[in-house]
């Protein structure tokens, strides 16, 4: 794990050794490995910018998504004053894309946060206590294996479509926690047999303490990786649902709904069609690269980078 620290500072009585060994904590090793993964670092920065632009960009841009533009600016290709062009109804596409991205990002982040919390708790208890919770979890996973999750998404979307983005996000979260729960359960199943857990129990630690102080910190890697990937999956699922008309509803908009609204004019006014799709790709792609880098960084067997 960590390199041993020399007991006395070497320069106290002159240099006894030719080189010193600096100790590195687990966190620093992970950070070092991550920073070596250039694609992941760049992706992280781009993703952060894309999310920031989505969340607050709409307020800074001088057109609103529901502003009607002057007649002479309607239906124009991209220009300096309208970097993504305008629609035939007289809206600024850049403002629309920012608004759509805002909804999509809000939904994706909520889904990742809520489903990770539910999944970690259920997975941890199922893996630690086994028993009925464990078999319930496994049957639930079986159910999702047999019926494609999109079916449930679509049904819930059909039911809660009119209730705003937050309801939609909760629906998606209620169905996406199983994968993270399975990952946490698997890690817990192997970790609970380790000696340090036995040692903690011998010292009189309660189950709660063992779960939250000993086991969970050792599961942080897979949890973070999984939460990251959930953001990409949630963005794609939300856009797909909105594309089918089962997600975000008018008058609001999302990236998927923008593509669905504009696909008929893709041949004549390509700018309406390209930019929402590119925004989705930028977010999903950077999330995937970030997840890849994090997976490598958290993997102690990764030998490509000396940590």
């Amino acid at each position, binding site marked *: 794990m960590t390199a041993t620290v020399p007991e006395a500072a070497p320069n106290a009585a002159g240099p006894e050794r030719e080189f010193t060994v600096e100790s590195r904590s687990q966190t620093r090793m992970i950070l070092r490995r991550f920073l070596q993964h250039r694609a992941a670092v760049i992706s992280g920065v781009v993703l952060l910018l894309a999310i920031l632009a989505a969340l607050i960009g709409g307020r800074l841009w001088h057109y609103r998504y529901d502003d009607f533009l002057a007649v002479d600016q309607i239906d124009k290709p991209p220009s300096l004053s309208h970097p993504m062009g305008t629609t035939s109804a007289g809206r600024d596409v850049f403002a629309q894309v920012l608004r759509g991205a805002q909804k999509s990002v809000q939904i994706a982040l909520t889904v990742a946060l809520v489903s990770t919390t539910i999944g970690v708790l259920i997975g941890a208890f199922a893996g630690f206590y086994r028993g009925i919770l464990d078999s319930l979890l496994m049957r639930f996973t079986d159910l999702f294996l*047999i019926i494609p999750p999109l079916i449930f998404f679509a*049904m819930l979307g*059909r039911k809660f479509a009119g209730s705003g983005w937050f309801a939609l996000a909760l629906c998606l979260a209620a169905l996406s926690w199983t994968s993270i729960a399975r990952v946490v359960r698997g890690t817990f199943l192997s970790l609970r047999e380790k000696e340090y857990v036995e040692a903690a129990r011998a010292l009189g630690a309660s189950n709660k303490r063992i779960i939250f102080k000993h086991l969970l910190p050792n599961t942080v890697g897979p949890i973070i990786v999984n939460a990251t990937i959930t953001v990409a999956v949630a963005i794609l699922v939300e856009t797909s649902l909105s594309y*089918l008309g089962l997600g975000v509803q008018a008058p609001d908009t999302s990236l998927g709904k923008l593509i*669905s609204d504009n*696909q008929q004019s*893709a041949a004549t006014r*390509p700018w309406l069609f390209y930019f929402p*799709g590119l925004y989705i790709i930028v977010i999903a792609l950077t*999330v995937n690269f970030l997840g890849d880098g994090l997976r490598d960084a958290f993997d102690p067997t990764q030998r490509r980078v000396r940590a």
Partner: protein
Amino acid sequence: MLGFIIRRLLTSVFVLFLASILVFVAVSSLGDPLAELRANPRTPKSTIEAKKRELNLDKSVPQRYVIWLKDFGTGKLGNDNRGRPVYPQLKSAMELTLRMAIGATIIAAFLAVFVGVYSAVRQYSISDYIFTFLGFLFLSTPVFWLAGLLKLYGAIKINNFFNRQLVYTQGDSSPNFTGGFWARMGDYAGHTILPWIALALISFAAWSRYQRATMLDVLNSDYVRLARAKGLSNRRVLTRHALRNALIPLVTVMAIDIGAVFAGAVITETVFNWAGMGRLFIDALRGYESNVLLAWMMVTGVFVIVFNLAADLLYGVLDPRIRV
């Protein structure tokens, strides 16, 4: 082995049964199948009442479920809300979905194995980075957007170049088509090529990443080092020793994914306007067609169960160390 199969099938049937209850209750709570009829003020009350009786809507949800279960048990899939039988709809949808899925899966599988092995053998080379990027790119691209690009650049440009309609962007075949057998096949091909490409690129992305990872694992193993130490040619080491073992996990993942394919690629079918299983599902959901939805779920559920079981058994066959 036999015990394992029986146990798995029994649990699966039980889960399928639970799923049917869940879906039935969910569909009944979604909305009113007669809303369209009611919306018209000139529909006589007696018509609505008669329709209600015909669809058993005057009964409670559990009662209706039992009626459905009895019919299903005797092999009847029933009619949809307009009185058309469900079975022929399911059959024609399944045919279209198979036409779309089988071709796309074969293209994706070959592409994934080739690209995965190539990137693993040339790890950290420029071509590996390019393939990795492409894999992540297709993993991150919404299929409806990719399909839009294919229509724009594939279909329209090719048709303009040859100055005749070769590649179609809508539907599964031309209606009112007249011509011989080969002309008919050509028409099918023109309609099928874009959905194949769109679907294949999306599944190829995940599979090639998977193939690369397993191939890397195998290439770093001791027996491959031994094979090289024996002086076997690189080609023989790769094909005979490494690839054979690296294919095992991918084959099982593919079996599971193919099971899900029978549910239809909802979005690809919507974009290209194919009346396959995915479209059947979405349309049934829009019209609150509980009979269609349940029949759909039963058929796709059986396919998923069978292919999952096949994946498990295949694992045992391909890798003799694993006893199923």
